[in-house]
């Protein structure tokens, strides 16, 4: 498909050149945008959503852009080669979409100062041609917590974590805080799958949690397996990264949808126009980078509460991490009315009260 597209673009450019008969300047080469995914684009979660972003770039920029992607690239020695291959193959901007690509991205960026690199969810920008971007998924997690506490009869939700990195811990905490705003005794059980994408392991984790008595399932892993297990066992669940309603029409309450498209379009355009600059962006509901899937399978009053919470966060009237908040062991962390700053959140390595798990260390 891509070769065909290039061919078409070339034909078009040639035709244009002929028509203009040398009077006008030849059309610019298309900007080449390249994407590296940690999972398969068919995961219907994280990588799938990034790929949706790629498709949006193709759609909006048309012939001005050429795209390429690599899926299921393992974090580690292979990532560096994959990124370097892209850099050498004429990519103008490369999006590396997993935390584990952080060091390889910076290593390759040092060798190719003219190529722009965009690393998702990382914090290292060692060279001027590396930008980082991430989304405030925890805003959606807070809303999910609110819904979970209203919908759960057991008062316990299950949470499938990937790796105990700050990003994930922050999500668990936001979920618990949302739930406790409704039911102060609400508990969350956590199982670490230690993978971003492994339908088998994720399904096992979901089953183990359900056997421990949770009646709401949420996940920070990328496959639809937990949703499907929840549907089989007749409990409710939240989708992750993409709208997973097809996998649980009677199960999904809502989903946090990562909408990378607008950002990708903006950044590729910036490269094209020569206005690209290094940034570190962390946007959420307000900017439309985090979108909530329709609130389904819940009574109207719960839905109304969810919508109200979403609006409060979107408008900036409320921040999920607003004190008073205690750490898991009961020691105070945030005083009444105080709001956690971004730096603290991005390095978060402790649970708040109400998480029924020991953070691995």
């Amino acid at each position, binding site marked *: 498909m*891509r070769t065909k597209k290039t061919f078409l673009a070339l034909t078009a450019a040639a035709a244009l050149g002929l028509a203009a008969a040398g009077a006008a300047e030849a059309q610019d080469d298309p900007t080449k945008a390249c994407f590296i995914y940690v999972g398969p684009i068919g995961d219907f979660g994280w990588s799938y959503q990034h790929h949706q972003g790629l498709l949006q770039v193709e759609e909006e920029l048309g012939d001005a852009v050429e795209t390429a992607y690599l899926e*299921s690239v393992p974090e580690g*020695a292979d990532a560096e080669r994959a990124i370097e291959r892209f850099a050498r193959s004429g990519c103008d901007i490369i999006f590396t979409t997993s935390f584990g690509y952080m060091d390889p991205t910076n290593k390759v960026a040092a060798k190719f100062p003219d190529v722009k690199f965009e690393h998702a969810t990382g914090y290292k920008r060692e060279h001027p041609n590396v930008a980082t971007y991430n989304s405030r998924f925890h805003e959606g997690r807070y809303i999910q917590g609110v819904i979970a506490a209203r919908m759960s009869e057991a008062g316990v939700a299950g949470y499938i974590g990937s790796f105990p990195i700050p990003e994930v811990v922050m999500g668990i905490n936001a979920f618990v805080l949302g739930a406790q705003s409704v039911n102060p005794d609400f508990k969350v059980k956590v199982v670490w799958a230690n993978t971003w994408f492994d339908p088998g392991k994720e399904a096992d984790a979901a089953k183990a949690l359900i056997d421990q008595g949770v009646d709401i399932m949420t996940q920070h892993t990328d496959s639809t397996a937990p949703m499907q297990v929840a549907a089989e066992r007749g409990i409710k669940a939240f989708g992750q990264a993409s709208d997973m309603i097809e996998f649980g029409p009677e199960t999904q309450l809502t989903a946090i949808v990562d909408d990378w498209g607008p950002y990708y379009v903006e950044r590729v355009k910036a490269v094209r126009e020569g206005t690209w600059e290094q940034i570190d962006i962390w946007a959420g509901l307000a900017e439309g980078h985090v979108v909530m899937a329709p609130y389904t399978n819940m009574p109207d009053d719960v839905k109304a509460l969810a919508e109200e919470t979403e609006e409060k966060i979107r408008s900036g009237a409320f921040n999920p991490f607003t004190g008073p908040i205690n750490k898991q062991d009961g020691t105070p962390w945030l005083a009444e009315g105080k709001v956690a700053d971004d730096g603290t959140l991005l*390095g978060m390595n402790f649970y708040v009260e109400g998480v029924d798990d020991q953070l691995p260390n």
Partner: protein
Amino acid sequence: MRVELVKRPQQSALFSALSPFIALLLTLLAGAVMFLFLGKNPADALYYFFIEPLLETWSLHELAVKAAPLILIGVGLSICYLSNNWNIGAEGQFIIGAIAGSILPVAFPGFQSPIVLPLMLLMGIVGGAAYAGIPAWLKARFGTNEILTSLMLVYVAQLFLDWLVRGPWRNPEGFNFPETRNFHAYAVLPEIWPASGRAHWGFVFAILAALVLWFVLSRTLKGFEVKLIGQSPRAGRFAGFSRSRMIIFAFLVSGALAGLAGISEVSGAIGQLRPAISPGYGFTAIIVAFLGRLNPLGIIAAGLVLALSYLGGEAAQISIGVSDKVARAFQGMLLFFVLACDTLIHYRIRISRRVVAAKPIKAPAGHA
């Protein structure tokens, strides 16, 4: 009607030598059919898969990075397989070598000196050899099945590494991500020719190891002993060679080379320990060893071919958009055709039209 395999009284020397090439050719043909079914132009696809990665210097470097562990492990395995010792656990020996070699930079990051790297390589070799020594000793002492013990020790090694990088060896500045600290400058295996790509000295070790083992196997008494015991343990005993000492020798050599491959990979290509440091090199090296006819020089070529299949998979994914699973399919087909060709060299097919009702159908004895 039934199909039988009948052992040939004599094997064709010509076809024995040609067999890997026939297998390669059949793999290419089957690959072309596969691409056709995927709706891609087979000529384009094969070009991107097998030719394009060879056209650029940096890509050749990547080929060397990928081939180094395959060759190192493969030549070690050839000693084992020639002497009739079925070491399936090279993946585990690779991992333990990597762990043992990483003790200095991870647990003692303050110890920085030019001596660190040689010590790391040595510890990697010793670690891999010691780990291979377990199934060897069990076989020599108790006659346990080394296929099972060596294979199961792979899982032990993988879980041990997993535990280390999530627990005691986790990078204190790594935001809880399961990986160790990055190796300091003295602990990094240098690149051979940094200006043009990132191939590291592991590839040189691989070529040296292959040359040394080729010499040992073809020109020394030890090599004769390896092959004699492998082909006929009885004749070996009459010649005064000890079977148990050969078991230990073969496993130690093979484990040492797998361990060297492990520490070279970690120190040269990755720069830290992670939960998964090998995409199955220890198992792919089994294909490499057989594709190379258990001859160290052949194994160099076979290692490069298999490495190419990894790179080609990536290149084909970028250029024509086929799935990354195609590389795996190629490797599977290659092994299948290698074994099929070998089988047909040793056996011929007999189709008997007579229906034999009373006789139970016996599976043909496999040739491994």
